[in-house]
């Protein structure tokens, strides 16, 4: 890849507007529509089941579960043709036979040609704790990144990086809200990894900005960020590409359980790459970072 000179900085304003718009939409979605929490965070029970004869239709299966009086029941296909994921609110923690009673009831409706391949049941207390610790984890990681970049760079860089991170996390969650995709523990893991990845991408460009700031005293930050983005561009593209290759193969071949996780990561990598260029750098411009900003630190 030959060195290119793309005028990224010409589009700072345009993309900032687009980002603001996306952020705004995402926030509106998160506040008014909310997230579709899975049993990890809402409590309830999921059963992944495989039906061994193909006579039972999904509507029959749904009707069978509705007859059991389990509150809100959702039944959907999960991966292969005869695999289904059943989700319902009720979770009877005092009855140890709860699941086997459901098994018996289901056998009456659809015959015994089925297996429960996975059962997850989470009580309300545990789910609210998991939600809390998930949020703490995300908050903690953002704070940790803020301080790390502050220590390694200057506060202006730290602010730019953290705003880029928040941008990625909010838009990814907004996407999940818009398409009503389920948020569970693995999505939190994905969000944290996005935080790490997006930071990683931003840091590489910032490292070059800092180096160039030392080298050139006569170039303003507006052009300097553009030079730095261009110099690191082929790396940015290659790394995002290989990471996306890995994630895509998890998404396509890694099985149903990892689908949500890998989708969140794919979105995160795309937004993370974009925000490193179009959020983190414009903030350096906005904060009027100059050679003085970094030289001050060297004198200390």
């Amino acid at each position: 890849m030959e060195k290119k000179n793309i005028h990224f900085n010409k589009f700072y304003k345009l993309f900032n507007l687009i980002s603001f718009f996306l952020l705004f939409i995402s926030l509106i979605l998160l506040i008014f529509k909310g997230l579709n929490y899975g049993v990890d965070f809402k409590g309830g029970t999921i059963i992944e089941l495989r039906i061994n004869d193909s006579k039972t239709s999904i509507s029959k299966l749904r009707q069978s579960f509705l007859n059991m009086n389990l509150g809100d029941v959702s039944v959907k296909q999960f991966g292969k043709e005869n695999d289904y994921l059943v989700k319902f609110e009720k979770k009877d923690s005092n009855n140890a036979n709860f699941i086997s009673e459901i098994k018996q009831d289901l056998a009456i409706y659809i015959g015994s040609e089925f297996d429960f391949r996975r059962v997850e049941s989470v009580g309300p207390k545990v789910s609210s704790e998991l939600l809390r610790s998930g949020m703490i984890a995300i908050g903690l990681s953002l704070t940790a990144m803020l301080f790390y970049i502050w220590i390694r760079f200057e506060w202006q860089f730290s602010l730019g990086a953290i705003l880029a991170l928040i941008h990625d996390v909010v838009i990814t969650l907004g996407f999940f809200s818009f398409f009503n995709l389920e948020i569970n523990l693995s999505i939190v893991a994905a969000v944290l990894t996005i935080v790490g990845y997006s930071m990683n991408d931003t840091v590489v460009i910032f490292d070059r900005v800092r180096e160039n700031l030392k080298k050139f005293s006569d170039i303003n930050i507006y052009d300097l960020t553009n030079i730095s983005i261009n110099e690191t561009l082929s790396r940015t593209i290659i790394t995002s590409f290989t990471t996306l290759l890995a994630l895509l193969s998890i998404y396509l071949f890694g099985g149903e359980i990892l689908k949500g996780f890998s989708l969140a990561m794919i979105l995160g990598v795309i937004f993370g790459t974009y925000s490193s260029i179009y959020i983190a750098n414009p903030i350096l411009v906005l904060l009027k970072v100059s050679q003085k900003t970094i030289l001050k630190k060297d004198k200390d």
Partner: protein
Amino acid sequence: MLYFSKIRIVLISLFTLTFFYLAISNFIKLDDKLFDKKINLGLDLQGGSYLLLEVDNKPVVAQRLQNSISILRKYFKDKNIRFKNLKIENDEYITFQIKNDNILKIKELFINKNSDINPYYPQYKSHQFDLKITNNQFNLRFSEYGLIKIKNSSLDQALEIVRRRIDEIGTNEPNILKRGNNRILVELPGLDDPMRIKNLLGKTANLTFRFVIQNAEETFGSEKLLFEDDSEEALVSKRIILSGDNLLDAQPRMDNQTNQTVVTFNLDRVGSKRFAKATKTGIGKRLAIILDGKIVSAPVIQSSIVGGSGQITGNFTFQSATDLALLLRSGALPAPLNIIEERTVGPDLGQDSINSGIIALLIGFFLVIIFMLFKYKIFGLIANITLILNLFLLLGILTLFEATLTLPGIAGIILTVGMAVDANVLIFERIKEESKNEKNKIIAFDSGYTLSKTAVIDANITTLIAAIILFFMGSGPIKGFSVTLGVGIFTTLFSVYFIARLLTSIYVSKNKDKEKLI
């Protein structure tokens, strides 16, 4: 940056070979006892059951208040303290009133550090009870640390009983751990239907033998209890003849005469004596056998039983008799346990997950390798060799620490494959830049490595921070993800700065006169 001493080359090779060997030992049955560690598969991969149990401490606290009341009553009588209305309010605190003139003296009895009735815990700097006095009204409520003590001791007991019960069933390598001060985590690998265990853990197994009586009695009190099949009620005395504590052993048996399944039991010495005495005086009466507040059976005593053994009849199947015997042998839980979280994965789903995980890993790996080869040619080859060794290092370290590999953990490995090339890409791109201005290849390569170092380190530390936070906040499968992601960063840095750099330095020093190296 490009120079390697001989000793370093040897060390790097040794290190890499060792972990290569560790990684391989997971897949191939190596015929030596040198090293027999293995990566553990998580419950989501090998199938199994994860249960989180919470101790319901309410009955324990109520019981302890009840005990304290009898102690107080006796204590006041011994000390000639006049009190009235000594009782428990709302199952939460003890309240009583005394004569005005004694208040200070009595208060002293409770707040003294050597108090007999309100023990002081020096390690917590707190008494068992917090005392509140309004006029002549005393309120005693368990202090924060008093409650913690109760919770800890009931958790310890419950843990012991849970362990015994699960051991009795004989599952494979169960994992039973304390969580916080009122929870127990049970992991049962290979178990795809935890129903029986859930049933056994869901029972307190509080066994008592008490007489069935006709009219409510005064001294001990009485209560109406249902039979197990909810068919009828009986009035039983609150006086306990025998309890589960007196049992030495219990076994399911087939009664030859009636062809019924029964549970036979043996009593300890104290129990035998009490049982003999009770059965002697109680011939013709019905003795109710009560389990967790329900009457299992209430046979009429035919003759006195002196041998210290007996049998419990009831509507048992052989399975339920076996389970009851097991519960009685392992003892009663101090408090009921609630299952507040359950995750069970069947073994075939686990195997499916392993298969799809491996397929995704191979495909992801293959795509990245092809791309790197296409993009960087000979240096792509170096990056690829590094990547393969990186994978073996990662697996080797997981083996060394006998880490648990979960499905998200496999995802973490695949992600590491995608992100590991980043460091090499950063370095190669930098070398390309430096090569434009620097004709001496060795110097260009050297400064390429040096100048890209801060970016590589910073970029990896950010991912490491995320992995560490996930490790501490996540649970189960997610923890597995953070482990592979975190370890992957260290192996990546090692493989890039030692293996790839070594290979690069060998190649560059042999081909330094070529026009275009990278």
